[in-house]
């Protein structure tokens, strides 16, 4: 898939992934990788940025399999931001689809 496309929707996918369930970094990377093939390293900076922008809150939870894990929780601001992104995405993809259809006729 085109790298620019991936970059554009990565935020939305990450926010959506955490919407219903708090996740730790690695789990989130796995979740995102199911949707798009992305360099795993690039997701952590994105998480950090979203946390700095208060869309995520983090907390540590003990794990039986190793050191404590840092979980990401979507804040109210994060939910609003996610909704905005979804609306924009819908509009964007509708317009592009319509345009492509019109051209192909």
């Amino acid at each position, binding site marked *: 898939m085109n790298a620019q496309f991936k970059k554009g929707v990565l935020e939305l996918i990450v926010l959506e992934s955490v919407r219903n369930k708090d996740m730790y970094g*690695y789990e989130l*990377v796995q979740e995102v990788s199911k949707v798009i093939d992305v*360099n*795993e390293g*690039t997701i952590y900076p*994105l998480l950090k*940025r979203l946390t700095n922008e208060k869309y995520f809150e983090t907390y540590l939870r003990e794990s039986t399999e190793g*050191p404590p894990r840092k979980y990401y929780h979507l804040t109210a601001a994060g939910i609003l931001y996610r909704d905005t992104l979804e609306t924009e995405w819908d509009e964007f993809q509708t317009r592009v689809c319509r345009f492509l259809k019109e051209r192909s006729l």
Partner: protein
Amino acid sequence: MNKERFLEKLTIRLQVLDEKEKQDILDEYALHIDMKVAEGLSEEEAIQDFGDFEELVADILEAYHVNPKFCTPSKVRKKEWKSLDMSKMKEEGKEACSKAGGFLKRSMKALQKHGKHAYTKIRGFFHQLKNKMKMMCHREQKEKLNDSQDSKRMKGFGQSCKRTFAGVMRGCWNAVCLLTAIVFFVLTAIIVLCFGVLLVWQIQGYPLAGVTLGCLGAILIFGTPAVRLLYFRKKRNQHSGLIFSGIFVFGILFVGLGTGIALKEYASFEYTGIHTIGNADMMMRGEATFESFPEGEEKYMLHCFADEIEVIEDASVPEKTVKYEIRYNQDYVDVMINDMSADGYVCIAPASKAGTGFYDFMRCKDEILKDFKHKRIGTYKTVGIEKVKCRVNPKTAEELYVEKSW
């Protein structure tokens, strides 16, 4: 690249970040690699999944709003060197030595070339100088020299001297320009500072519009030559000259206007006379009974350092006795009474309290600033002993001599 090396490299490249933040992100990556390894991948494979290292670093730095350009490998290479493994160090060492060798080689060539040229010039100069000296010392020999050769040599010597003189003059001129520019620059900095202070006071309502405007003019007057001498001395063109001249003229204009406004402002100040600052709200009472006149005198002496003295004749006061009331400012002074009434002498004087200089200054400052703001000016003094009221028996009143000081 294994996990340890990866984290080490990442640590170096993220050194611009706060220690806690850096550790936070490193922990994330360390945990990620550990989990991949637990799934059966090697450390190298796990790290490969992160993609290009430089892009990763750039992404992390961007997440912290740090421009990745300022944390390029060259900027952190010095620290990174310490953590490189031996083989890499060897390779980079070779490369660096090769570069350094190339640089030294080129430098040596350049030095050789320019050195030779300089040496030839210097030798020629001294050779000419020597000939000149010889010519001066042995005029007879000089006459025998071929006229054409002589003139040629003299011409060369003259040009050399001219070049040397021009070089010295240029150096002196540059030094003078630099010194002048530094002086102007320092002056400008001081005036800018004053301008800032005055501007604040002007906004607070003090009548300083003229002085502030004058300051602005002075900044332009001193700042223009400083900037021109420091930065534009070698970049002269018609436009820059015109601009600088224009700014300079505006500076003079502002100083003129500022002076005019200031004179107008201060000439309209109202003089409000003497202001006594502080309250004489403390009273002290006492009495002294004189026994004999001071030596060589025919009257008892009461010496008071006070703004005002009042003597009242009162029959209820015993003869040869003085009852006094002292009104004074207890914030400013203590009253010192030197009672030598047995010898016919009493002195009442203020004793300044410690720190009253500052008290004096602050009280006067408040008053002066208040008056200045309202375009008034006066004479200010702090009250110590305001008044001494003396009661004496009318029969012996003639025998008392009251002396007032200040």
